[in-house]
């Protein structure tokens, strides 16, 4: 209320000066360094590649035609599967953890959440490197297995899809737990009690009340994990060797090795497209949840 009043109170000319001074620099900066670059990507996606890299300004749909080539579609499908598996695992691991945090005594909840986020603040490359140390043929896990006599020879766990999924999971798990916690924390405890009073067993209350009400958190967390997973090229390269090529690797190669920028632009738009679809799903779901409430 007070905000509205103070807005009305300010005189017209000062308002315009204020608007210009505050919104001007940011608006200009983001136009130049965000909107224009994205527009350039869209434009490039319709252009021809130059013979020696670069772009020739001749409109064409060729890049899009190449993008629906089975070879690329398979990589896209692989990325979606690896990203999807990562997201599913994050959900399965993250949900009980987030739920457990909401049931902690109040004063422990915030420290428990901070402990989830803290590793996220360390360098992403080093966190990925830690898994090389762990899963390598000469690594900790291999050594441990030999020590307990499960195997006689060094075993390598790296360079397959599994290690890529583990690396992505490790990188993005906190991004699943936070929105899940936020959603679970918002649920009115009275609903649990009501359900119990009406005779529902705890697990039934969990399935019929808690899970549906936490759906927005599940969607948000899934988007936060899935979108960066499929665009990631570091984990597939470091932990996947040459075994798992994902869209991110392909984009990197088009821009830095093959120097086919128009095709790289189309590939990156495919990630944006996937993200848009998920955001629309989320918006529809939010609307529905609100309609119920």
């Amino acid at each position, binding site marked *: 209320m007070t905000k509205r009043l103070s807005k009305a109170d300010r005189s017209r000319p000062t308002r315009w000066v204020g608007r210009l001074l505050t*919104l001007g620099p940011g608006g200009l900066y983001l136009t130049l360094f965000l909107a224009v670059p994205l527009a350039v990507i869209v434009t490039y996606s319709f252009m021809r590649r130059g013979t020696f890299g670069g772009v020739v300004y001749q409109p064409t749909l060729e890049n899009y035609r190449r993008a629906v080539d089975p070879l690329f579609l398979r990589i896209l499908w692989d990325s979606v599967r690896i990203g999807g598996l990562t997201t599913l695992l994050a959900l399965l691991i993250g949900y009980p953890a987030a739920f457990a945090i909401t049931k902690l005594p109040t004063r422990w909840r915030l420290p428990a959440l901070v402990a989830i986020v803290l590793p996220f603040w360390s360098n992403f*490359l080093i966190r990925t490197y830690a898994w*090389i140390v762990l899963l390598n043929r000469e690594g900790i896990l291999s050594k441990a297995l030999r020590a307990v006599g499960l195997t006689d020879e060094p075993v390598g766990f790296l360079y397959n899809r599994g290690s890529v999924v583990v690396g992505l999971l490790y990188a993005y798990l906190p991004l699943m737990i936070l929105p899940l916690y936020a959603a679970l924390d918002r649920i009115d405890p009275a609903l649990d009690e009501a359900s119990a009073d009406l005779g529902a067993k705890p697990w039934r209350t969990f399935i019929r009340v808690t899970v549906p009400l936490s759906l927005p958190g599940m969607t948000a967390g899934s988007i936060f994990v899935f979108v960066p997973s499929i665009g990631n090229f570091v984990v597939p390269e470091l932990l996947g060797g040459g075994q798992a090529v994902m869209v991110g690797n392909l984009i990197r190669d088009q*821009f830095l090795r093959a120097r086919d920028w128009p095709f790289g632009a189309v590939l990156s738009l495919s990630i*944006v497209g996937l993200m848009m679809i998920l955001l629309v799903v989320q918006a529809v779901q939010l609307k529905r949840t609100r309609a119920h409430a």
Partner: protein
Amino acid sequence: MPRFRRWLVFPLLGVYGFLYVPIVILAVLSFNESGLPTAWTGFSTKWYGALFSNDLILRGARTTLVVALGATVLATIIGTLLALGLERYSRSVLFDAFAIAPAVVPDIVLAIGLLAFYTMIQFTLGTVSVLFAHVTFNIAFVTAVVRTRLHNFDQQLEEASLDLGATELRTFFRVTLPLIAPGILAAALLSFTLSVDEFVIAFFTRGAGVETLPTVIYSMVRFGITPEINALAVVLLGLSFTVVVVSQRLIGLRRVVDNA
């Protein structure tokens, strides 16, 4: 309050184990004399010595420091102004979305967009191009942090100042700015940390021959086990954790969690 169900402890402890065991192992290995993960040959700080005499790492660190400081200063100023504008002068949902967009767009998309844009306007790639690129996503985070701070303080204080005859500018410097200062500082710290750790955008926009700390780390870990990296991991972790603790003092744990 609902009783804590005892079995719930196990999934939670499992997650903490998953998150922390790799980091702890790196930290322990950083003091291993042999530098190898398989054989403990005694306690040593020699890898820290090696780290601080590694020219590549030091040069990368210097570039990263320049980029992070520059990007933080610019993003903090622009982002704070933007937050003020969005909170006080705008009701446009579209502008809200625009201000948060750099944090939402996948980093690889922003990275190649900026690379293409720089190349198109023939902007020389190097430290400055990385710095400008980092300002872009930092603006989003600074704006978000400062906005919550602006949102949460009692705006009648500003009105009182205006009613008492202070000009809008004077009110800003004497009332608003001191009140949101902790938020601005926390935003600056966040922006600095994000910039120090950022890899993908720096990787694409740095140009030939310019290395930031993360791009140095990348080329090192690509060649397998490098003991100096363990020491570096501990140093960077210490830095990040300090920043988290300091921002917690400034704005409370709640915001540290929300901003990650």
